[in-house]
């Protein structure tokens, strides 16, 4: 095994693949696991931007939502092939991401965050009020997509393996990326943008490229969502959803790829479990955030350092 993919990653992957065999993995926990892995993967794609390049995107919910809408629109109109849905999502999200990243990467810091936020709000407002796409109700009750003409992804188990495959692929892409020269340039940009520029790198082009990759990975995740939930609604694109994505990255640990996957899964499970027991679960989430920011800036992965393990830096 090379340094991109260690045997440990493979073992973890296989173990997660065997998870459904555990006796307590009911249909419901499979669906919950779907959400956990899906949002974990999305948090990981966002980590490429925040953790490695130092760009805080506050508009990832739009990539997610656009992916979900492209699938839902096709499924609703009888195009059932998962592959067709994925291609459509890649085209739509790619085009939108191209425009957003072109304008947003021209600006630094908070302006990048705000431009992505405002662009996402425009997309949200568009779908919220366009009756062709269901307005505020969104598109509901779409049929399950098909992997092959005779193979519908219509059970929680099948959905689980689809999302697992997506997570594995996304993880590989991200790993290869951060281990490559490209990834090193991204970290250089994060550490000192001007220096990277003086070294002759076209900084904006690098930023646009990583934005595009992150957006596409998120969009593909969105495209898988209607297969599990049967709907796409404007709420998926609310700016608070983008905020949740950032929170997932922070909980897991910036610039670690694996951390945000855990952060996303943790966030989904926390919300699900706590909200069943108490009606003040937003306070729990708020307190978790505050504790993490103040005492565990490395996120959940930082626990290792506290336990005396070797510290690890996000240098790729």
């Amino acid at each position, binding site marked *: 095994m090379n340094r991109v993919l260690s045997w440990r990653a493979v073992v973890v992957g296989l173990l997660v693949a065997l998870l459904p065999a555990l006796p307590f993995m009911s249909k419901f926990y499979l669906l919950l696991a779907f959400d956990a892995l899906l949002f974990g993967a999305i948090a990981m794609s966002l980590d490429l931007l925040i953790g490695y390049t130092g760009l805080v995107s506050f508009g990832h919910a739009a990539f997610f939502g656009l992916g979900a809408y492209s699938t839902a629109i096709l499924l609703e109109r009888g195009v059932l092939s998962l592959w067709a849905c994925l291609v459509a999502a890649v085209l739509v999200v790619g085009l939108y991401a191209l425009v957003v990243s072109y304008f947003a990467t021209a600006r630094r810091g908070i302006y990048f965050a705000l431009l992505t936020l405002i662009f996402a709000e425009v997309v949200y407002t568009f779908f919220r009020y366009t009756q062709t796409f269901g307005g505020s109700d969104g598109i509901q009750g779409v049929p399950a997509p098909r992997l092959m003409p005779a193979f519908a992804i219509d059970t929680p188990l099948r959905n689980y393996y689809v999302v697992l495959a997506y997570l594995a692929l996304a993880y590989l892409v991200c790993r290869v990326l951060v281990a490559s020269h490209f990834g090193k340039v991204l970290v250089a940009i994060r550490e000192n943008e001007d220096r990277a520029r003086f070294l002759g790198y076209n900084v904006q082009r690098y930023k646009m490229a990583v934005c595009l990759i992150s957006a596409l990975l998120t969009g593909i995740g969105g495209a898988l969502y209607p297969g599990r939930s049967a709907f796409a609604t404007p709420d998926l694109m609310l700016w608070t959803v983008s905020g949740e994505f950032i929170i997932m990255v922070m909980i897991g640990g910036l610039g670690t790829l694996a951390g945000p996957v855990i952060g996303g899964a943790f966030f989904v499970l926390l919300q699900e479990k706590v909200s069943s027991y108490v009606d003040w679960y937003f306070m729990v989430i708020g307190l978790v955030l505050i504790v993490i*920011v103040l005492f565990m800036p490395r996120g959940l992965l930082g626990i290792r350092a506290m336990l005396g393990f070797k510290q690890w830096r996000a240098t790729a």
Partner: protein
Amino acid sequence: MDYLVAVLLPQLLHGLVFGAALGLLALGLTVIFGLLGVMNFAHGELYMLGAYAGIAVVGVTHSFWTALIVAPLAVGAIGAVTEVTTLRPLYRREPLYGLILTFGLALVFREAVRQIWGGDMRRILPPVTGSTPLLGMVYPNYRLFLLAASSILLLAIWLFFTKTRAGILVRAAVQDAEMLDGLGVNVPRVFTLTFAGSAALAALAGLLLAPIFTVYPQMGVEMILLAFIVVILGGMGSMGGSVVAALVIGLAQSLLTLWMNPQRVAIAIFALMIVVLIVRPRGFFGREGVLE
């Protein structure tokens, strides 16, 4: 001419009232942004706390005017404690941490209020009642009072920042905190007091608007995005810019509603923002190069 008097002028007045109130909310936000480089997500919750603190005080003293003094002081104190305990440790870190922290604080404040006062919506009766015939309609006196009060407050704040030593210190801290530190000023104290002042201002806005906008735990989160837009348009860290931008947004919303669907109004405002951010990212009055 009839159209002007019967339709346009009332609409302008509506926009002015809303814009002035929005300006109060955005002002504290922009000062904190200039000072700490943090977009304070909890600002909307401080605004909400102001309204609830007002309800508590009115409940005891039955006087809106007392509440108008006590509630901002109370929320200012909460702001000071928050700054010292949670934000101060973060000053040397990346702004992202501050952003996420305030996101968490917002959740905690909102939920705390819901647990204390319940989630039901509440009203505060306006202390100024009745209405005045104006431009062919009856205009509520409280709205006129609100316009006057916000104008006086904005003027007072402007005087504070330009004429008093404390105000000039804050502005200096916004410009260059390290320099100030070098001059022997107790910068952490300036930060704490400024944060408390910004919280008090948000609380004041919350209480002043409560008789018109009603009170409930989510009232802040619904205002904060609009306040962000104002701060960006005005130029982050620019106080005058925020006030101008708030009036522009108030007037634009009110006037565009005459001719457009609400969704087109929303998209028009976002489009304006995108153009501003691309062409002139420092906003109307922001200084060049700030955090770019």
